[in-house]
């Protein structure tokens, strides 16, 4: 169990009580730290890893405080956004590098390297050098190296952002299973709400250095603590109206073009469509509702075009009031 306490991500700039928070990361779970660029995700990682950062706070692993950078660096493994490997070492030597530091026998190292390389699908590449690998393979190698360390905390700072779409899709599934099997504390940062669902057992929402909500993704999704929390876990954004001084917000996927069956009191809105986009899996209908820009997200494709007038329906249960 990794506990952080009295964390302040922007000391000096933003010191008030709301800016200071505590959080517990459980082992065997993937915690996705979700926030926009510059929300403090990387600062939090660097604080936990004991790297140079402006963030302050206490870090405690399994009831023991991690004092000093050296003990922390032993306990924590990190994978970065850029593919960081030793360029002059082969794939096998790269994976073995953290093991050598621990003075294991050659046979033990071999066994562990082969095991990790097999699990990450790079076992046929053991004799190659990093520059001979594709981007996806290089990042698999970086992950294998971080796991070889058998760190008690594994930090992954947006490790998949530089990868091709299809590669990313495949690696996400593998990574989730691999990280669960490792049984360590796993912290995964992202700015993409999809990652919170596809990878996270828990999600921690950061906004401008503040912790704004934490919990299981579906729970945070259904019961957002604030409008900003709702927005952070929405794709592509949140639709809202101001009614009698109350902010009524509804997610794009909860607004429908067809009437909802068996809904006693459906809410209705009129939309003037400004644009229609589809990626096949889903469609996004952009338009104006009263004075606001709204988006409807629905599965599959729809016969809609800019200029159309649509009646939208939403179930009262899906509307969140702030």
């Amino acid at each position, binding site marked *: 169990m990794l506990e952080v*306490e009295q964390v302040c991500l922007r000391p000096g700039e933003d010191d008030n009580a709301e800016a200071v928070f505590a959080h517990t990361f459980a082992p065997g779970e993937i915690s996705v730290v979700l926030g926009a660029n*510059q929300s403090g995700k990387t600062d939090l990682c660097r*604080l936990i890893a*004991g790297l*140079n*950062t*402006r963030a*302050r*706070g*206490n*870090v*405690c692993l399994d009831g023991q*405080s*991690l*004092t*000093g950078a050296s003990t*922390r660096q032993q306990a924590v493994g990190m994978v970065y956004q850029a593919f960081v490997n030793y360029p002059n070492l082969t794939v096998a030597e790269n994976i073995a590098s953290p093991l050598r530091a621990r003075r294991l026998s050659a046979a033990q190292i071999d066994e562990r390297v082969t095991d990790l390389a097999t699990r990450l699908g790079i076992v046929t590449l053991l004799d190659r050098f990093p520059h001979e690998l594709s981007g996806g393979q290089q990042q698999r190698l970086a992950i294998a190296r971080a796991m070889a360390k058998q760190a008690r905390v594994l930090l992954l700072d947006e490790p998949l952002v530089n990868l091709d779409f299809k590669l990313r899709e495949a690696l996400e599934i593998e990574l989730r299973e691999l990280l669960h099997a490792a049984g360590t504390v796993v912290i995964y940062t992202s700015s993409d709400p999809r990652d919170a669902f596809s990878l996270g057992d828990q999600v921690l929402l950061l906004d401008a250095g503040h912790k704004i909500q934490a919990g299981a993704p579906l729970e945070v999704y259904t019961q957002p603590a604030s409008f900003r929390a709702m927005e952070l876990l929405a794709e592509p954004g949140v639709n809202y109206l101001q009614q009698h001084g109350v902010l009524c917000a509804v997610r794009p996927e909860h607004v429908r073009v067809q009437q909802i069956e068996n809904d006693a009191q459906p809410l209705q809105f009129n939309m003037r469509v400004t644009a229609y986009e589809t990626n096949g899996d889903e469609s996004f209908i952009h338009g104006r509702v009263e004075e606001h820009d709204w988006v409807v997200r629905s599965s599959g494709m729809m016969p809609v075009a800019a200029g159309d007038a649509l009646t939208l329906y939403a179930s009262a249960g899906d509307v969140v009031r702030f």
Partner: protein
Amino acid sequence: MSSFKPHNNRAWLGVLPVLLIVAFSAVIPLMTVVNYSVQDILDFNTRFFVGLEWYRETLNDPRFTEAFLRQLGFSATVLAVEIPLGLAVAKGISKNSRYTPLILILLAIPLLIPWNVVGTIWQIFARPDIGLLGVGVNVLGISYNYTAEPLHAWLTLIAMDVWHWTSLVALLAFAGLTAIPNAFYQAAELDGASKWQQFRYVELPRLRGVLIIAVLLRLMDSFMIYTEPFVLTGGGPGNTTTFLSQYLATMAVGQFDLGPAAAFSVIYFLFILLFCWLFYASINREQNMLSSEGRR
């Protein structure tokens, strides 16, 4: 739980050894100089406190003012030649030819030659009786004698400094140029920008930081120049190539005017300190600009 802060209270212990070394090697000698500069020293046992008298005298000394102006003239000329020339050389080096590493090594050679050797090389090279340059120029029909003609002495000194140091500017600028992503050139090409416009609007703004470093390094270095003119011209003919450091050496070692020499040193030191500060401030500013860009 213990606290982990980036500003560890005991961290200063780590820099203590360095502080001690700096104290012994820099601060104590400097204090000695400051001490000398406010006293009239007749011999080691007879000395009087004279306040700022030596400073007043130094600043009013016409030979100091002349040396100072000469120094400024030299530094300005050298900068005016070396910076554009270095940029031009850097632009001329192909970025990914297989000869590029060889060219870079060749460029670095003048930087590796000891300074007095540089002086000696040029002293011989430019001699009107046996030097290749000196004889060559005279053969072309231009009367040239750097030991007699102040203008010739100056030109020779500047040529020597340019030969010695332009590589530094070129290497710095080349490093800056290679860091510019190809997309910038491609975009300028598609915009229809001429080579000059590419240089002016793509390369120059991106070389800003590197050029500031080059200018200040060369300014500080040329301001402290001693060995090469000492070997080449010995400050002559007359005093026409006597720069600050050489005048100082004459005062301190030649005439043993310890008080005025010490006051001179302190003034000289303050100038160098000013340049250092400019250097530090502008690098900091560049970095702040870069990081504020990164943050957005």
